[in-house]
């Protein structure tokens, strides 16, 4: 029985200005689930300012919810006791956007790989630790002999990002949260990294949250795509449905903004120049309405309909995937 990381009806509001009078709602009424017995890949897609990073910080327990709860194994993530904290920090791993910033340039690559093993007391001896490290590096397609003993600046961006994935794997995690893991990696190496992430879910049963602004890569790896805009979920559904039959105009706008790799397919680049239309009125809170078995779209709360949550759609997509397999 794998543990669940649950976001339950969460709002995150940032206050600024005199006595917190200026309020900015970064996330609004979000309910979603990661992990459990049904490991899947959920992609969170959105522009800058959509709340993607706030969501990752929330899932990692770095950000307290203003309303609602974030639970891991039934216990609140924010303000957990030491034992719970230790298990959480081991079982939930993160991979960040910038493969250059996360390394301390004064330490060899070995250091960030050894220290988590020490911190959690996973390896009993140095030899055992190195055996584990070599296994993890090999599983992400790196040659240990060419990686260990080097300094971060001697590796390329793609190699460093793979070292970070190996570091996450060392701790045998149940959940990996990846925040834009390929956006700073060269185009030709992106698919290598994505393939590794995809393999983690398929072969090791690790649940993934893949946060990105790139719909194409989300479509390549994810089971469920969540489209976030202005802190609210615009559309959620099976990847195939959301990409090929988008129902919300914002999802359609996002898809239209992606250039096709075929130079003969028109992209209408010269027509744009005006700002896109507004998809949410200021102060408006939308609810998710289920339109298909595997999909929900944002609508106004007064419209009624079958109101649902991201969690429910994730579960439905997971169930459909299992019955297809």
């Amino acid at each position: 029985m794998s543990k669940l990381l649950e976001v339950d009806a969460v709002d995150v509001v940032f206050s600024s200005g005199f006595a917190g009078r200026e309020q900015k709602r970064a996330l609004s009424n979000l309910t979603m689930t990661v992990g459990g017995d049904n490991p899947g890949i959920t992609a969170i897609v959105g522009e800058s300012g959509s709340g993607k990073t706030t969501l990752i910080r929330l899932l990692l327990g770095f950000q307290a919810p203003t309303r609602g709860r974030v639970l891991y194994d039934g216990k609140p993530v924010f303000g957990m006791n030491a034992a719970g904290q230790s298990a959480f920090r081991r079982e939930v791993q993160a991979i960040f956007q910038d493969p250059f910033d996360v390394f301390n340039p004064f330490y060899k690559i070995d250091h960030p790989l050894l220290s988590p093993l020490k911190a959690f007391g996973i390896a009993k001896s140095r030899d055992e630790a190195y055996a584990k490290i070599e296994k993890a590096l090999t599983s992400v397609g790196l040659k240990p002999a060419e990686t260990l003993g080097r300094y971060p600046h001697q590796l390329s961006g793609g190699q460093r990002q793979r070292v970070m994935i190996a570091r996450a794997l060392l701790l045998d995690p149940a959940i990996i949260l990846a925040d834009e893991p390929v956006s700073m990696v060269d185009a030709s190496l992106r698919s290598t990294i994505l393939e590794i992430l995809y393999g983690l879910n398929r072969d090791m049963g690790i649940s993934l949250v893949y946060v990105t602004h790139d719909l194409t890569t989300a479509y390549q790896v994810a089971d469920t795509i969540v489209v976030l805009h202005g802190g609210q979920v615009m559309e959620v559904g099976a990847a195939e449905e959301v990409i090929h039959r988008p129902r919300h105009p914002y999802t359609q706008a996002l898809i239209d903004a992606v250039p096709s790799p075929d130079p003969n397919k028109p992209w209408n680049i010269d027509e744009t120049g005006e700002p896109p239309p507004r998809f949410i009125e200021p102060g408006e809170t939308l609810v998710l309405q289920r339109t298909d078995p595997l999909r929900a779209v944002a609508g106004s709360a007064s419209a009624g309909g079958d109101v649902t949550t991201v969690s429910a759609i994730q579960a439905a997509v997971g169930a459909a995937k299992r019955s297809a397999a």
Partner: protein
Amino acid sequence: MSEPVLDIRNLTVEYRTAAGPFQAVKDVSFSLNAGERFGLVGESGSGKSTTILALMRMLRGGYITGGSIVLNGRDLATVSDRAYRTLRFAEMSLVPQGAMSSLNPVLRIGEQIGDIFDDHGVRHGAAERQRVIGELLGRVGLAASVQHRFPHELSGGMKQRVCIAMSIALQPSLILADEPTSALDVMVQKQVLGTLGKVQRELGASIILIGHDMALMAHFVTTLGVMYRGELVEIGPVKEIFAAPKHAYTRMLIESLPSFDRLGAFRGAGARADTFLNREGTP
């Protein structure tokens, strides 16, 4: 007028390193006609940015060791550093990669654009200067009032547009754009590229767009050059290159493009990228 705007012949650029000279750009030749859109793609470290910096004479620690650059019929090697200052922005301008860090945080947008005019001896009265800058901002889709704002008050896409406005302030015949959209997300990227294309067309200027996103290139440029390890390995009309890439690296770049037509199965493209780079000895 059949003379090219820019003609680069056998350009070679070296950096001096502790391990001896390193050739970052090797024997690169290409030329641009008026109004042409040229794309330069390649991995980080392939020499594309170095080529552009050599053009602008903004290399840090690098030296042009061979070849010639001719802009509007003038050999740039004969141009003094002082004259180069006048030439930048007036004949050739750069839209930098990180608009976030290219604007001075303590000057209002209008003052920074005004500096370009002042440095090039263009004089305006205060009211006229405001009007000129307002018009300039209007051409890139920004409100004239943006000139009274500070960079931190603008979004990433707006800052990038300010940089485009600055690059066209003196109506150059060549615009160099170094990954102008790589820090922006998809929606804003499309708007900014649209803006860049529009002002380039209105000006009749040529443009060199640098990047590693082949899909963007496919839709923006007419001619494409592919750089790999300092060499220009392939050059030609963008549609021909996409239809029949000749160099293995170009083929790999095109095949590794993500698209909506291809699901989860990775078709081994990633693995191919890896073995290709390893075989060629890239670290």
